[in-house]
């Protein structure tokens, strides 16, 4: 899976906007949206919010976890624990990138938020690599990791599965099995 595909899945998450136009309820295949009244906050999926923002038809309200204090807490907890802490949103990385790229004027202290999220990401990736290494080193049969987001899994997934494939094949060499198949003339 490419990062762009993960971002596509992330765009289904809901976010609050304040529109400056009015529109009746619209009926889409995925569900209903609206009605839109100027000045009244409404919840829409991220793909629509970004589109409206680019056309200057709305103002984005950052999600309540996208705040410097909260993110600092999350980052510190991530650094303290050995396991993965639950993240405020399963798509925190993608939402941060999208909202900070298109709506940074609506989000206070955007640069600090970007740095904090990046720090948390780096810590989590380091933990992931550490646990992958101990998994391979001890040749465990299976492992369980909670609270991982799709983007993290996607970044290290291909490498890890290929390495484990190789390890499996080398391990089956240890058991000669039914013997090699040679042809007798």
């Amino acid at each position: 899976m490419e990062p762009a595909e993960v971002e596509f899945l992330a765009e289904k998450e809901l976010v609050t906007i304040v529109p400056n136009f009015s529109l009746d309820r619209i009926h889409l295949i995925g569900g209903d949206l609206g009605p839109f009244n100027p000045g009244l906050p409404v919840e829409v999926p991220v793909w629509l919010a970004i589109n409206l923002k680019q056309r200057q038809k709305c103002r984005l309200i950052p999600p309540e976890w996208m705040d410097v204090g909260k993110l600092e807490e999350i980052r510190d907890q991530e650094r303290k624990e050995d396991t993965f802490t639950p993240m405020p949103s399963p798509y925190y990385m993608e939402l941060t990138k999208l909202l900070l790229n298109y709506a940074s004027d609506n989000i206070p202290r955007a640069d600090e938020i970007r740095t904090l999220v990046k720090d948390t990401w780096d810590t989590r990736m380091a933990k992931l690599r550490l646990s992958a290494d101990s998994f391979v080193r001890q040749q465990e049969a299976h492992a369980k990791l909670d609270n991982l987001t799709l983007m993290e899994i996607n970044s290290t997934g291909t490498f890890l599965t290929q390495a484990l494939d190789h390890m499996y094949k080398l391990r089956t060499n240890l058991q000669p099995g039914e013997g090699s198949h040679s042809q007798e003339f």
Partner: protein
Amino acid sequence: MSEAYFPVGPGLGMEENFLSLDDILMSQEKLPGRAESALPRLAVLMGQGASSAESVPEGSKLEIPLWLAKGLHDSKRRIISVELPKIYKEAWRTVFSADANVVDLHKMGPYYYGFGSQLLNFENPENPEIAQTILQTFVARFRRIMDSSQNAYNEDTSALVARLDELERALFQVGQKGLNDFQCWEKGQASQITASSLVQNYGKRKLTEVDG
């Protein structure tokens, strides 16, 4: 999905993958061996004589490529016997178990893992130890490959891959690709439309006139 074709990977077990280019190159590596019986008129092929009428005398030492050794190996009709190359022998095995990270696997035969797995086809009392050593070497070197491939963005990686064998290099490429894809997405290049590399090559060829 964005690749032009999917190459067939190496077999890496006791059987090779027939269609894999890596396996074909790997089976060209040579093994030391001995001729158990005289091989009539094959001296030129084995690199031992000058004219096509000479035969290889019994007991002479030969360097045989793996594909030939596998074909000629038969415990009943003793045509040739093979020995282990020195990196799979006891002395090197202790080096690998001490610290596998310092060994230059590219110099030792760029197909250490594949070739070692193929050697298990020939009956040899040391086979279990060889298999164990290959596995332990892979496990020990895994950490370094992972760290170096996931952290080297936009750098010259030739120093990092110089000591890896071909299997490890393929893994390194996969890790680099994951990293590059992520960084490229984060910079926003993933949503820019660029011409595909296949199409870019079309422009380089001149259109030939077709006579009606």
